[in-house]
């Protein structure tokens, strides 16, 4: 009965739990998935990005971030800031308009939706009558001009969104003033662009799709000028002084028009097709920026020659004789120029070009020679190559931190030194309490080091393992080898490059020792690299060893990929982590577990066939152990992805077909072989049909047996100095847990430091534990005499941890997917257990020991297990008594890739992917909470003064600390919900994750 008798509510413990645990989703790191709109306020110096799932995110100075979500989850089509206000208007693809405000509350600013509005036409009118195509927030801040498909321009009052019907500009009114021989009713269909005169707020420029442009006088309600363009209009732009404007067109041309009081129907000054004479693509947006030296900057999107460069996503910058067409890695969503916003200034004097592409944000410094890119402090494209694994290291020693930064800065020399130009708002969050690193492994064989200490996830250093191997791809096929006379003058910018040259290079496991600077990295083709941090460039030979994990097993045939070929001779490495040892597992199956002991200088690695121990000091393989069950044929034949599991549901298989189609379509741009694609599609269809016959969805109830597949798959490896043989002597040991519920323990003899090179490391199997429930072992941990988990290697040596209690008896905690079990040591007998799956039907996916500090007192902290289950719940389980403390729903259970990508920190925070390009950060701790706290000051709203305010108000920003808004957190959850509701998003996340395997 004990099980069912809940421990009575201990009020003291309950209170303590409240002081220790608290669940928050705090911030989203990375690049928004599927951005669809961009906006910028020169007044607030804030940038806004809208997404296809209806989110808007505002970014200013590093750390200044706001997020909002439209309830409709519809695509954000346009974002417009209200001039000189902390307000913005969004237009969604359902034709609804939303007014958002930044409001101060409790010392921080919050982004709130204030009003929503949908333009309604007279009864019986077609939907196109009110379909909004252009939005102009007037500088009076009182009205919004809405151009529509019908050619009507509606005027709505702000903030009430009341339609001022008497002020509607109808095509009929426009046509009254225009000679009929040039125009007819059709000329005024679809308003393409609305632009307010830069000097005279009573005049607006109206551009219709068919080429007619009209200057409209708001006071007198009449057209003062009209301009007859012959080409379909794309966009308009006023020059700063209002004497000229520029229009860009569908045929790839742009035209300058003069505006003078004497000529009511002027002819164009200049009509240019910059990439002519052959047919060109449309120029969809154009800027004309004046400078002191007289030479303007002409910056436009598109316009490339259709036939040869029609597939490029380009933005061209022309300044005198300089011309560059920046060639982006993905579709350009929108762009803006940062220029002098002071209305008194005579020239625009542009400083930066900010481009939102579909997969990344690129900022170009227009002030420096050569127009270099600026390194963004946020919005990093995490997915520039698909993320295959992640590893978090808390509390990095300053020395290592500085060395990593210095290695990274050498990689970033081609970036501009310009300070980040989008610097609105003030970050009032306290400095992060410690330096945290998030390491992401990628499909292309790189490891990226991110500063995860604060709100801005910032790339510090990028490590590539490719150089060690010989791959088909020539590393020197550079894109920047264009000659002087190349036309158009394309220049690749951006880092997004999702196509891996060789999937075997993919990184699967990472282990960094923060005290010694040793890094172990393991990959898809059984490669294990041990690296050391070196501050200088170096050329050296990488020692190479092979670990035959099948040993004496006979008659097995590996049908998977081949091992990677290594480069002979010395290899040149840049400053940073440089590999000195390479161990290649044989068969070259994906490395499934990795452990590094920097004090003993040992690295352990496991695959689906077994595990091995390598002495990286003596560069000698200590031992290998084959964990394969003789009947397990599947493990021998190839990588996991090849195995067709009957458990796969119909839905999954459908998803897979669709994904395969998507990916084949995606690669069409490359050297895609059509017949190959077709063949692949046919194969997938066939597979899907086969799986369909198994419907309806049912699950087999069968006890696990020793003969199941992948029982030998090594899930976890753990080094511990503990009592393995007898209770009087402790010794180094290596523990390994398999998918079939087996735990192996090896007793290690590591020679003392002075004879470390002379005597070999010896290992002897001491124990083998077969859990009867045979569930995969996902975690092994030894608790010391005080029931505290053993410290990390070198932790004690660096005075960062108390030395473990070697007096009291140690305990072994084995975490399987189904149970937590504590055993005594050295004699292994079951002491305590928590049967999670039998009770709740959920399985352990991730488990870590986390330290939780009390928010009330500084002197109390405890270690607990943070557990993520397959249902996406997070549970905190106490140590050593295995009592469930608290449970929070975190990730949707359908979000398989989110769950698979989750990584916990040592202090109760965590990260998981909500899209291929975004990490959600969450916190379980009351003490360690990293979330944006920022403030954007609202300027005094003065009467109807519509002249742009001077920048001086910008400078006068104050900040006062306070509590962070609950709403923001709420919206974070909503956001995630929206993303995950999107079937496409899910598919894409999954494809990125699975694609890596």
């Amino acid at each position, binding site marked *: 009965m004990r099980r069912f008798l809940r421990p009575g509510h201990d009020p003291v413990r309950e209170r303590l739990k409240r002081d220790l645990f608290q669940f928050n989703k705090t911030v989203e790191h990375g690049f928004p998935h599927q951005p669809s709109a961009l906006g910028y306020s020169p007044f607030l110096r804030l940038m806004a990005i809208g997404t296809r799932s209806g989110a808007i995110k505002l970014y200013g100075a590093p750390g200044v971030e706001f997020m909002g979500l439209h309830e409709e989850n519809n695509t954000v089509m346009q974002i417009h800031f209200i001039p000189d206000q902390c307000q913005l208007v969004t237009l969604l693809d359902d034709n609804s308009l939303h007014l958002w405000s930044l409001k101060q509350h409790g010392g921080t600013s919050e982004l709130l939706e204030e009003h929503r509005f949908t333009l309604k036409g007279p009864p019986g009118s077609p939907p196109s009558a009110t379909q909004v195509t252009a939005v102009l927030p007037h500088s009076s801040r009182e009205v919004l001009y809405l151009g529509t498909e019908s050619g009507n321009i509606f005027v709505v009052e702000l903030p009430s969104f009341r339609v001022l019907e008497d002020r509607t500009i109808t095509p009929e009114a426009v046509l009254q003033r225009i000679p009929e021989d040039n125009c007819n009713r059709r000329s005024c269909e679809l308003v393409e662009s609305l632009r307010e005169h830069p000097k005279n707020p009573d005049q607006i420029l109206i551009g219709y799709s068919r080429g007619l442009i009209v200057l409209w006088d708001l006071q007198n309600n009449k057209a003062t000028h009209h301009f007859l363009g012959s080409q379909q209009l794309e966009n308009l732009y006023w020059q700063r002084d209002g004497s000229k404007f520029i229009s860009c067109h569908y045929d790839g041309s742009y035209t300058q028009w003069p505006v003078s009081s004497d000529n009511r129907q002027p002819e164009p000054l200049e009509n240019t097709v910059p990439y002519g004479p052959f047919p060109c693509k449309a120029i969809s947006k154009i800027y004309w920026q004046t400078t002191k030296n007289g030479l303007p900057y002409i910056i436009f999107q598109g316009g490339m020659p259709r036939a040869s460069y029609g597939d490029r996503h380009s933005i061209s910058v022309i300044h005198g004789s300089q011309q560059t067409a920046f060639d982006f890695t993905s579709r350009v969503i929108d762009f803006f120029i940062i220029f002098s916003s002071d209305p008194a200034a005579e020239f625009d004097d542009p400083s930066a070009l900010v481009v939102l592409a579909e997969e990344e944000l690129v900022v170009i410094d227009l002030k420096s020679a050569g127009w270099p890119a600026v390194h963004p402090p946020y919005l990093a494209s995490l997915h520039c190559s698909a993320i295959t694994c992640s590893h978090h290291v808390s509390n990095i020693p300053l020395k290592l931190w500085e060395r990593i930064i210095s290695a990274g800065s050498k990689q970033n020399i081609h970036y501009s030194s310009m300070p980040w130009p989008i610097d609105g708002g003030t970050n009032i969050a306290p400095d992060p309490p410690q330096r945290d690193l998030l390491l992401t492994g990628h499909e292309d064989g790189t490891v990226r080091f991110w500063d995860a200490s604060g709100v801005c996830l910032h790339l510090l250093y990028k490590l590539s393992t490719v150089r060690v191997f010989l791959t088909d791809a020539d590393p020197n096929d550079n894109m920047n080898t264009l000659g002087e006379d190349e036309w158009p003058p394309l220049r690749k910018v951006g880092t997004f490059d999702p196509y891996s040259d060789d999937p075997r290079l993919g990184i699967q496991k990472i282990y960094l020792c923060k005290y010694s600077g040793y890094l172990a990295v393991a990959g898809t083709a059984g490669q294990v690299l041990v690296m050391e941090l070196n501050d200088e460039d170096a050329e050296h030979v990488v020692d190479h060893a092979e670990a035959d994990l099948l040993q004496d097993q006979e008659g097995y045939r590996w049908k998977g990929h081949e091992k990677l070929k290594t480069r002979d001779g010395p290899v040149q490495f840049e400053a940073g982590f440089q590999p000195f040892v390479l161990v290649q597992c044989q068969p070259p199956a994906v490395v499934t577990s990795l452990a590094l002991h920097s004090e003993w200088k040992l690295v352990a690695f496991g695959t689906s066939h077994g595990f091995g121990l390598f002495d990286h000091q003596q560069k000698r393989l200590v031992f290998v152990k084959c964990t394969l069950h003789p009947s397990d044929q599947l493990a021998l034949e190839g990588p996991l992805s090849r195995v067709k599991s009957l458990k796969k549901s119909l839905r999954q298989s459908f998803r897979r077909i669709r994904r395969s189609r998507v990916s084949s379509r995606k690669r069409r741009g490359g050297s895609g072989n059509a017949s190959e694609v077709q063949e692949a599609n046919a194969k997938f269809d066939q597979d899907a049909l086969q799986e369909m016959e198994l419907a309806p969805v049912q699950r087999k109830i069968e006890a696990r047996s020793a003969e199941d597949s992948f029982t030998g798959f090594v899930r976890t490896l753990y080094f511990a100095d503990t009592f393995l043989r007898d209770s009087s002597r402790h010794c180094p040991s290596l523990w390994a847990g398999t998918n079939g519920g087996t735990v192996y323990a090896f007793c290690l003899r590591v020679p003392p430091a002075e004879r470390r090179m002379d005597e070999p490391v010896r290992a002897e199997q001491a124990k083998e534990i077969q859990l009867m*429930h045979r569930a995969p072992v996902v975690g092994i941990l030894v608790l010391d005499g005080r029931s505290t988990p053993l410290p990390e290697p070198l932790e004690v040596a660096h005075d960062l941890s108390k030395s473990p209690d070697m007096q009291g008896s140690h305990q072994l905690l084995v975490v399987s997917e189904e149970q937590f079990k504590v055993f005594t040591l050295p004699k292994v007998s079951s002491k305590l257990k928590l049967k999670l799956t*039998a009770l709740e039907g959920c*399985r352990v996916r991730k488990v870590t020991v986390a330290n939780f500090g009390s928010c009330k007192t500084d002197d109390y902290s405890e270690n607990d297990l943070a557990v993520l289950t397959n249902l996406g719940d997070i549970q905190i389980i106490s140590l050593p008594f295995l009592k469930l403390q608290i449970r929070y729903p975190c990730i949707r259970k359908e979000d398989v890739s989110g769950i698979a990508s989750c990584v916990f920190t040592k202090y109760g925070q965590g990260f998981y992917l909500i899209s291929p390009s975004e990490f959600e950060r969450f916190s379980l701790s009351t003490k360690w909470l990293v979330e944006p706290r920022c403030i954007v000051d609202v300027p005094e709203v003065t009467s109807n003064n519509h002249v742009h305010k001077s920048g001086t108000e910008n400078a006068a920003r104050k900040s006062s600390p306070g509590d962070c808004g609950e709403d923001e957190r709420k919206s974070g959850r909503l956001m995630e919900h929206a993303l995950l509701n999107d079937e496409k998003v899910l598919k894409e996340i999954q494809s990125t994750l699975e694609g890596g395997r």
Partner: protein
Amino acid sequence: QFGAEFRRFSLDRYKPGKFEDFYKLILHIHHIANLEVMIGYADVHGDLLPINNDDNFFKAVSSAHPLLRVFIQRQDEVDYSNFGTNTLSRKKKALVALRNDNLRRRPHINISMPHDFRPVSSIIDVDILPETHRRVRLYRHGCEKPLGFYIRDGTSVRVTPHGLEKVPGIFISRMVPGGLAESTGLLAVNDEVLEVNGIEVAGKTLDQVTDMMIANSHNLIITVKPANQRNNIIRSSRMSGSSGQSTDSTASHHSLPTPHVLQNFHPDEMESDEEADIVIEGGLEPQHIPKLHSLTSSSLSRINGSSLSHRLQRDLVLNNSSGRESNGNIHKLLSSLKTDPRHSLVIPRGGIEEDGTVITL
């Protein structure tokens, strides 16, 4: 035509003698010397096993602790197929089948009786469950047979205060031929799964329930609502009024916080039923540390059984004292025992001494 009678006599435990003698003794004691009878006993697991030769007689006597419960049936009423794989609790199904359709009685197959038996399944907690539900325990210790069934999602209709309501449910979708689940005959396709080892499955997904069942596969107890309700135990109306009984029998469990605790399912028993992990020291030959399973489980079920035996006595006495001389056989007696424990105590507790594992219900 036997009435339910209860006699107690002693035998020398260590020199039980021959079956022939025992048989005669039985007939003599019961004054039924002119009848062909079949003698059975309840073994440590509560299974009804036959006594028909010297060997199993010896086994029966030696395993009795301290009493040997012997059941005597008329030879021609014995359904041989019920021996062997079936437990006593299985009997009642056979009984129902007999009652419903006498023509379908299987022909006797006279084969020699196996010597020893292991339970593979049982129906438990009949007294506390609604009669439309059935709680089935599948034993898998050492058994090589696969558990062998599939489950699926479906919809079920519930009676709620607001009328009938459709709710999602989990159903058995398929049986693996030759599997344990099929061989018990206690589970069938389209049975709705209500609980797994005492945990309600309502609100849980198919995958969760799958995981729970697999995690409990060494000792799986599932509560089902059989699709075919005709085979349910029919509680005679005579007894239905005394529903207060169940409170008596479950009084000891009333302090439980969870309403859906298995009544006859002691958690400690679950622990002991689980086979312990195997630890191999120094990479030598496997040393099995596990406690002897049968030993612990029997000792525990004895504890369990003691309260049952009281009930059993009561009912036996009741049947006798009411003077009903029906032609009820041992099956009927047992079924009434199991389904209708009542608390009209005619003879105070302990009036007739009896102890030991009797029946695992």
